[in-house]
């Protein structure tokens, strides 16, 4: 649907309707006015005729008046035929027009009769019939004579001795109204196409900003997502431009995030790869068994490291908002789940002689996804063991609050400085843990999983000065 066409058509329709109504009401108005004027004229000529007849009767000149009336060559008789010839040729019509000074062709459309009170005709116009024009003796009436509609006015003189009837063909009036109406319709019809053309241009110009915005948007791609200048667009289009700009901003942000992720991921993968290559080359060039053995064992550790990074990256990508993850939720016992995860990590804890304790809490039923919640707990406990001191202690405790089930993982490691606590959830952020081989994704994964479960995470200092991570799951 073209906005331009729609606007043009609707504006033209409105103008035509309003114009049509105006013309129609003028038409009605002119009919009324014309009736008034003509009726008045009919009456005044009747009065004049009556006066004239009475005067002529008194002077005894009535016969000569009658004969001068009959000489009018413009008069057609009542049957619609001209007094002289049957039909007028075009030439004769032109001749008639030359004779306008002597009278008018329209005179045939006017007629009159004068009667005395005994019903005898005293005087008549040349085209008047011998019978009375109307049975109505006084006042206006409409009469059909020889299939032509006439307007008749009858008038008695004051002592009711004579009466006059004047009549006028009705079509004279209609013709005038038609002419007036035509004069109104014609310019309107002539102006309509010009109006349409002007409107087409004006609407096109009005819509130009839209085309310009379209061109501007077309010129954008993922590398060029600058804002469209809002000040240069009409007020009506500003909300759209504003929305577009917000969309650009979002796209730019997510591209930027994607770019940063790729670059961070590259760093996290390339470093273990560099280590692998280095140790592989050292193993090749080793001059003794001991060096070769060391290099090979480091190579082994490097492969573990690299695959851990890949696993974590994949886990994070799967948890990304918008990723098509099937996070089927089911009822589970959080306590049971924690016990199972801790059991897996006991060997790692024993390497540093760390004691991992899970507080007894009975059944803690909640709704969630077992796989991802296990990953959350594993990442938290793994971190706690990694950063705890040798011979240290890691503790998992639970708390049932009004609306939450809270899991707390507490270690006695160095903790996280207050100003760093927000940053640790960023991907690839690595804090002070110098000797640790984490890749900085673990807590991002934890946060992502927590978000999927509607849970809230809080990092604080534990009573022993270590780190306490509290995850509050909403009770289902």
């Amino acid at each position, binding site marked *: 649907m073209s906005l331009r066409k729609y606007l043009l058509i609707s504006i033209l329709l409105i103008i035509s309707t309003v114009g049509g109504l105006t013309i129609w009401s003028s038409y009605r108005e002119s009919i009324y006015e014309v009736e008034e004027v003509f009726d008045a004229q009919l009456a005044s000529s009747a009065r004049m005729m009556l006066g004239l007849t009475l005067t002529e009767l008194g002077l005894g000149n009535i016969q000569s008046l009658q004969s001068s009336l009959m000489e009018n060559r413009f008069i057609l008789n009542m049957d619609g035929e001209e007094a002289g010839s049957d039909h007028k040729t075009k030439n004769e019509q032109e001749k008639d027009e030359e004779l306008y000074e002597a009278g008018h062709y329209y005179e045939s459309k006017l007629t009159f009769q004068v009667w005395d009170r005994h019903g005898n005709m005293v005087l008549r116009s040349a085209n008047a019939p011998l019978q009375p024009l109307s049975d109505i003796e006084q006042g206006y009436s409409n009469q059909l004579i020889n299939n032509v509609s006439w307007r008749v006015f009858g008038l008695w003189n004051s002592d009711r001795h004579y009466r006059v009837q004047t009549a006028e063909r009705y079509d004279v009036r209609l013709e005038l109204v038609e002419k007036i109406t035509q004069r109104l319709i014609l310019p309107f019809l002539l102006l309509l196409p010009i109006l349409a053309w002007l409107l087409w241009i004006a609407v096109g110009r009005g819509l130009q900003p839209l085309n310009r915005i379209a061109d501007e948007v077309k010129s954008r791609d993922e590398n060029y997502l600058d804002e469209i200048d809002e000040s240069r667009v009409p007020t009506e289009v500003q909300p759209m431009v504003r929305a577009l700009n917000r969309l650009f901003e979002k796209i730019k942000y997510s591209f930027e995030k994607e770019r940063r992720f790729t670059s961070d991921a*590259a*760093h996290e993968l390339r*470093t273990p790869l560099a280590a692998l290559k*280095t140790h592989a080359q050292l193993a090749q060039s080793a001059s003794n068994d001991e060096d070769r053995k060391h290099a090979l064992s480091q190579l082994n*550790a490097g492969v573990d490291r690299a695959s851990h990074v890949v696993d974590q990256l994949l886990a994070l990508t799967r948890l990304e908002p918008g990723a098509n993850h099937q996070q089927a939720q089911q009822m589970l016992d959080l306590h049971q789940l924690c016990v199972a995860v801790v059991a897996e990590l006991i060997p790692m804890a024993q390497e540093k002689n760390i004691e991992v304790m899970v507080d007894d809490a009975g059944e803690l039923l909640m709704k969630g996804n077992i796989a991802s919640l296990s990953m959350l707990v594993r990442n938290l406990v793994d971190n706690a063991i990694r950063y705890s001191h040798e011979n240290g202690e890691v503790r998992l405790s639970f708390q049932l609050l009004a609306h939450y089930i809270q899991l707390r993982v507490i270690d006695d490691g160095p903790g996280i400085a207050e100003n760093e606590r927000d940053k640790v959830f960023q991907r690839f952020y690595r804090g002070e843990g110098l000797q640790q081989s984490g890749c900085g994704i673990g807590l991002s994964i934890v946060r992502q999983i927590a978000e999927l479960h509607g849970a809230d995470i809080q990092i604080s200092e534990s009573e022993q000065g270590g780190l306490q991570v509290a995850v509050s799951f909403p009770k289902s």
Partner: protein
Amino acid sequence: MRVLLVEDDNLLGDGIKTGLQQQDYIVEWLQDGQAAVLAIGHEDYDVVVLDLGLPKLPGIEVLKQMRTLGKTVPVLILTAQDSIDDRVNGLDAGADDYLTKPFDLDELYARLRALIRRSSGRAEVVIRHGDIELNPASHQVYQAGQLVDLSRREFAVLQELMENSGRVMSRVRLEQGLYGLGEEVESNALEVYVHHLRKKLGSKLIRTIRGVGYMVDKAVY
């Protein structure tokens, strides 16, 4: 030659350190940016290998700070980001060369040799003094076209002196070039190596500056 290696990754750091030690470098390995800035401020290194992604202080900041301190030691940066921007930023911040991870150890060795050679103002690969030619890449010394058999420590002392010909090298500096910071140095070890070098290459090459150290005269051709 003393190298400062700044790399936070345990595995990679261990690998580079081992490799450089096999090339007879004395390697000091640090794992965070702050420690690196401190060490560069207090110790003399011949070259620094610097990872850009470091805890506490990013590599770029380490570079900027050490250059502000007026340290001209050549720096090779290790970067996992292969975008041109990263390399340009690194070089603009004061790095002399870069390697993208993962890299080849041999390339690392070659680039470090080139950096040391350039920083001592030589264009040539070998260091010449009279009829003596020292090749840092192959660890070989020729006198009048004849290969001279030197131990690794003897070679290290000779290289340090020839690289800095015309300057007196203190005993401490030479001893540091022989051993890592933590290692015990026997009090007369340096004299023993100098004695051996004089026996093999002639007594005129290395001059003793009493109470200070040793020097090789600026080569005159």
